[in-house]
């Protein structure tokens, strides 16, 4: 059987299933935002936005956008009944103070010790921009990194040590990729699930850090 890597939607579906009922969650731009679409409908999840929203809803219908109701990516969003608006300093107290249960973040690289790199490639010719990435990395109670397993050129993005500048040190708890679901533990990277048809040796070859296959590993279902 040949390996069947997950599509972006399938990664989002797989992650969505793990977002717990009642959680306060901050979503990064891109894949993390997509995951919110796949949270089972019987769960109530409260989404936080750095610019001062709890209880953020989906994108508005065309023509119903309010330019003063936007998310951290500056896109128009809606507010659910029960939503709250507050100022930036409170929004980041929620993050740093450990009140946000879970941050789902896109990643450029993740290291075996949970180091996260997602804000800069270190290219000095570009002006830098960090936004709230470092606060979320350091502050959220739990951080899940969502990304393709390798770069477009096939280079591993899960490494022993990140080569890009760090966003936060030792903070990632789980990694969801198009090939695997990996837990970051004090004993290293434990593979919980693999894409259908993928052999562990092949996964290891596409990873720049030592992996351990869990005894009770499963094929990813989505």
């Amino acid at each position, binding site marked *: 059987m040949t390996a069947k890597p997950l599509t972006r939607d399938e990664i989002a579906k797989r992650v969505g299933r793990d977002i717990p009922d009642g959680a306060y969650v901050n979503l990064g731009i891109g894949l993390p935002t997509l995951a919110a679409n796949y949270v089972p409908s019987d769960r109530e999840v409260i989404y936080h936005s750095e610019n001062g929203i709890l209880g953020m809803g989906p994108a508005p219908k065309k023509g119903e956008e309010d330019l003063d109701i936007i998310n951290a990516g500056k896109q128009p969003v809606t507010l659910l009944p029960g939503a709250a608006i507050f100022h930036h300093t409170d929004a980041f107290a929620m993050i740093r103070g450990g009140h946000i249960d879970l941050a789902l973040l896109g990643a450029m690289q993740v290291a075996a010790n949970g180091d996260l790199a997602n804000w800069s490639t270190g290219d000095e010719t570009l002006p*830098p921009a960090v936004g709230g990435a470092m606060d979320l990395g350091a502050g959220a109670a739990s951080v899940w990194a969502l990304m393709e397993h390798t770069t477009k050129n096939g280079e591993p993005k899960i490494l022993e040590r990140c080569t890009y500048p760090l966003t936060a040190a030792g903070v990632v708890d789980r990694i969801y990729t198009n090939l695997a679901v990996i837990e970051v533990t004090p004993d290293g990277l434990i593979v919980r699930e693999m894409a259908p048809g993928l052999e562990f040796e092949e996964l290891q070859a596409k990873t720049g850090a030592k992996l351990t296959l869990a005894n009770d590993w499963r094929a990813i279902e989505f």
Partner: protein
Amino acid sequence: MLDKRVSSLAAAVEGIRDGAVVLIGGFGASGIPVELIDGLIEQGAKDLTVVTNNAGSGHADIAKLLATGRVKRIVCSFPRSAGSVVFEELYSAGKLELELVPQGTLSERMRAAGAGIGGFFTPTAAGTKLAEGKETRVIEGREYVFEKPLKGDVALIKAETADRWGNLTFRQTARNFAPTMAMAADLTIVQASRIVDLGGIAPEQVMTPGIFVDRVVEIPNPVHAGQAA
């Protein structure tokens, strides 16, 4: 009688001196005090340090201020974004100095300034290149980075409603940095869509108490930076 109302944009921005540190509210296009920024451009102060989350988009408001060449330094969390052409041009030409600060640290540094706190230790940026050269301390097993307060000479704020004592409300997420910046500057200047009588804002609905505000100018139907772009 305490009356913080002023009758024109020129009166609102009067006295901003060269070299001032100017805090400008807004996140993306929401909460940008477009008319006050135009007033500052008209007023002509130069060698400014601007503290704001994004470095403008297109050629209006913050980008327009940068394009005048009167800003020598910008303190920002996310300067490079869609349409930040003026910033990028000045930055790559070496005409604009940038201090990059994580967003939560930016906000908390201004809060510290406004609250009389001489700095604080934060876990944000510990172990990263934005902590290089800064004092660190391990507190209960975790590394923290020392950050200093960030005080403004002036803050430019957009509000929805104000009264003559300077009590404010904000519209939706246009609130963002405004309450913190209002408390962090020596001279806080507010443009409000409506000025109401005292008591027109219910006490428990006041979002920024007037003690943090110095001048209020009424700008009905203000330009939204998102529409101007």
